[in-house]
C-alpha cells in the first residue's frame, strides 16, 4: 500500500490518564475509501483513541498523521511561541524608548507606546485565534502544536459522538448549517453590512443543508427542533451535520447504539452509501457485530488500551485473542 493511499496514520499513540493507560502505543492506519471498524469490550480505549484523532485529547505520546500531514504530536519548541508574540511589540517598545531618550516630543512617545500596546494586543489575538496562516507562520520557525478539534475539521475530518451531541434547541437545518461553519467564509463584517456574499452564503448553506438532510433520510424535517426528532433520526442528523464540513474521513462513534434492528439496518445501508456515493473513508466504533462484520473492510480490536488484533472481518471472527477478550479465557 503506498503512502498516499492512507488517509490517516496513527503512530505509537499512547494516552495516560494519571496511572491509567487508556491507549497504549497503538499503530493504526486507515486506507483511503475504506470502512475500518474499531471494536473492543467496554473501556478498551476506543473512544479515547477517537478523541485523540479528533483533536480533543492530546496524546501522551505518539503522533497522528492526517492526509500526509502531522496534525497531532508532541509540541515542538512551544516555548518559542510566546517569545514570538512578544518579539514585535518588544522591538516597537524599544524603538519608542530610544526616540524618547533621544528627545522626541511627548506626543510622539505617547503614540509609540500606544502602537506598542496595540501590536501586543494584535499578536495576542492572532496567537489565541490560531488561524491557518498563523500556523504556517509558526511552522517556519519549526514550532509545532497539536491541532485543535476545529483545525481537524478544517483539515477534513468529521465526527459524531457516542452520546448524541446535537444542538438540541436548534432546528435540524440549523444544526447542519453549523456543521458547515468552517466551509463558509462570510465574516462579521459581511453579516453587519449584509453583503451579497453573506446573503449568497446563507442561501447556499440552507440549500446544501436541505440536500444533506435528504441524503441521510431526513427530508422535510429541517424545521423541527433537533430534540424533537426520534432517536434514530437524531443519529442521522448528527451524521448530516458531520457531513456538512465536506470531510474526507468520517468518524462514527457507535452510530447504531440504542437503535432497533430496523433502524440499525437502515443506518448500515446509509453508511455503505456514504462510502460508495461520496467516496468517504469511514472509521467506525461499533458494538453491533452484525454491522461491523457486514460493512467493514478491516477491523481493529482493542482491549485494555492495546491493539490485540487487526484484519478482515473473517480473520477477526476466528482470532482466538479476540474471542478471549470478548468471552474470557477458557478455564484451565
Amino acid at each position: 500500500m503506498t503512502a498516499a493511499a492512507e488517509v490517516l496514520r496513527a503512530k505509537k499513540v499512547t494516552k495516560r490518564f494519571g496511572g491509567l493507560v487508556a491507549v497504549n502505543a497503538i499503530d493504526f492506519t486507515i486506507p483511503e475509501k475504506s470502512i475500518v471498524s474499531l471494536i473492543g469490550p467496554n473501556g478498551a480505549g476506543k473512544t479515547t483513541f477517537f478523541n485523540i484523532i479528533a483533536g480533543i485529547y492530546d496524546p501522551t505520546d505518539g503522533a497522528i498523521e492526517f492526509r500526509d500531514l502531522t496534525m497531532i504530536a508532541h509540541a515542538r519548541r512551544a516555548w518559542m511561541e510566546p517569545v514570538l508574540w512578544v518579539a514585535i511589540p518588544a522591538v516597537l517598545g524599544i524603538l519608542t524608548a530610544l526616540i524618547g531618550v533621544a528627545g522626541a516630543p511627548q506626543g510622539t512617545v505617547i503614540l509609540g507606546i500606544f502602537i506598542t500596546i496595540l501590536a501586543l494586543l494584535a499578536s495576542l489575538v492572532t496567537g489565541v485565534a490560531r488561524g491557518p496562516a498563523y500556523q504556517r507562520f509558526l511552522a517556519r520557525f519549526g514550532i509545532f502544536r497539536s491541532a485543535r478539534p476545529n483545525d481537524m475539521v478544517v483539515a477534513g475530518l468529521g465526527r459524531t459522538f457516542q452520546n448524541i451531541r446535537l444542538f438540541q434547541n436548534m432546528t435540524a437545518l440549523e444544526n447542519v448549517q453549523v456543521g458547515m461553519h468552517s466551509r463558509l467564509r462570510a465574516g462579521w463584517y459581511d453579516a453587519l453590512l449584509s453583503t451579497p456574499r453573506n446573503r449568497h452564503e446563507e442561501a447556499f448553506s440552507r440549500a446544501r443543508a436541505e440536500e444533506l438532510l435528504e441524503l441521510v433520510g431526513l427530508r422535510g424535517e429541517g424545521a423541527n427542533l433537533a430534540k424533537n426528532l426520534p432517536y434514530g433520526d437524531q443519529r442521522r442528523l448528527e451524521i448530516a451535520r458531520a457531513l456538512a464540513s465536506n470531510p474526507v474521513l468520517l468518524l462514527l462513534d457507535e452510530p447504531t447504539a440504542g437503535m432497533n434492528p430496523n433502524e440499525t439496518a437502515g443506518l448500515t445501508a446509509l453508511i455503505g452509501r456514504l462510502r460508495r456515493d461520496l467516496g468517504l473513508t469511514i472509521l467506525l466504533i461499533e458494538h453491533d457485530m452484525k454491522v461491523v462484520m457486514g460493512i467493514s473492510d478491516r477491523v481493529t480490536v482493542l482491549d485494555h488500551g492495546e491493539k490485540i488484533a487487526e484484519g478482515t472481518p473473517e480473520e477477526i471472527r476466528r482470532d482466538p485473542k479476540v474471542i478471549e477478550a470478548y468471552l474470557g479465557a477458557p478455564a484451565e
Partner: protein
Amino acid sequence: MTAMTSARPTTGPSSPRARLQAFAHLHRSATIIASMVLITVAMILLPQVPPLSFIQRSDAWYDTFANAGVFILLAMGLNVVVGLAGLLDLGYAAFFAIGSYTYAYSNSPFSHQNLPFLPMLAVGAAVAAVFGIALGAPTLRLRGDYLAIMTLGFGEIVPIMFLNLDKWTEGTNGIGGIFRPEPLPLLGEFTPLSPFAYYILSVMIVTLAMILLYRMQDSRIGRAWNAIREDELAAAANGINTVTTKLLAFAIGATTAGFAGVFNASKLTIVSPEQFLFAVSFSVLAMVILGGMGNIWGVAAGAFVVYLIQIVLLKQLNGIVENLNVPFLTKVNFLDYQYLLFGIALVLMMLFRPEGLFPSQRRRRELHIADELEGPIDEPGVIGSMGETPGADETFNEAAGEDVPGHDR
C-alpha cells in the same frame, strides 16, 4: 412516536400572525425601522396626553426616554454576550465607562479638545471594543463561573482606575463640562432645555444597533454563538473556532456599550467613576434576564420597562403616597428600596417565568424541556426512552402552568 408527530408544530405561514412573523423575518431591517418609527411617534404623542402628562412635562418624558435609550443599548449589547453566546459577564459597566471617558477626553475643557460627535461615537465604540478584546483574549478559555469572576474583577478595576488616576481623570469629581454634540442635520441643536434632539438621536442609535445586532444573530456567526452556548465541545468538533467566536461576542458587546457610553457622556455632560459601579452591571444584567435573554426586542423592552420603573414609577410612588398621606408609608423613600424590589422581581421571575417577559423562542424551549434533556442522553441504558415523547412532555409542561424550574445551560 405517534404522539410526537402530532405534537410537532406545523410549519409554513397559516395564520395572519404567522405570516406577519415570516414577513418580519425576511425583511428584518425594514421591520425594525418601521416599528421604531411607530414607537417613536407614539412616544412623542403619549406624553402630551393624560395620564402621562400628569406625571411630568413632556420634555421631562423625552429626557427620560433618551436616558432609557442608553440602558436599552447596554442591555442589547450584554444580550449578545450573555443571551447569545452564553458567557456570563458581570463587569459590563466597565465598557460603558470606557466609552464614556473616551468621549469625555475628546470633548471637554479638561482635555482642551472639541471633536465632532458622530466620528467620536465610532471611536468610543472602537476603543471599548479594543478593551473588550484585550480582556477577552487571554481569559476566554475560562468557562462559566471562572469567566464570571474574571469579568467581575475587570468591572471593579476600571472604575477604581478612573477614581485613583486623578491626575488624568480628576478622580471622584469626574470630568465635567463635557461639550454637547454640535447641531446635527434634522435633529437641530442639543441643549439642556430641549431634550427632544437627544431623544431622537437615542432612538436612531438604538435602531441602528438593533438592525446590526439582528444581522449578527441571523448570520453564520450568530449560529455559532448559539452552538457554543448549547454545547461547546460539539461546536468545536464541528469546526467552530470557539475562542475567536467568543471573542467576537465579547467585542460586539463591548462595542455596543461603547456607543451607549459616548451618548451617555454627551448627554449628562459629566462622567465620574461612581456612574459605573457594579450596580450598573447588575441592573443591566437584570434587564436582560427580565426582558428575556436572547431576544433582542424583548431585552430592549425589558430595559425600557425596568428603567421607567426605576426612574419614574418609584419617584411617583413617593409623591402619591405623600399626597394620600398614608401613615407609615410616607416615611418610606421608595427609591431607596429599588434594589430590594429588583431582587424580589428577579426571584419571582425565576420561579414563575424563567425565560423572561419577552422570551426568545429558543430560550423558552430550552427552559421548558431542560430537565428531560439532561438526564437520559449521557446514559446508553436509558437511551431507548429518549425517542419516546418529547413533544408530549412539552405540552405537559405547558398544561401544568409555566413553573418549570429555570435551568441555564
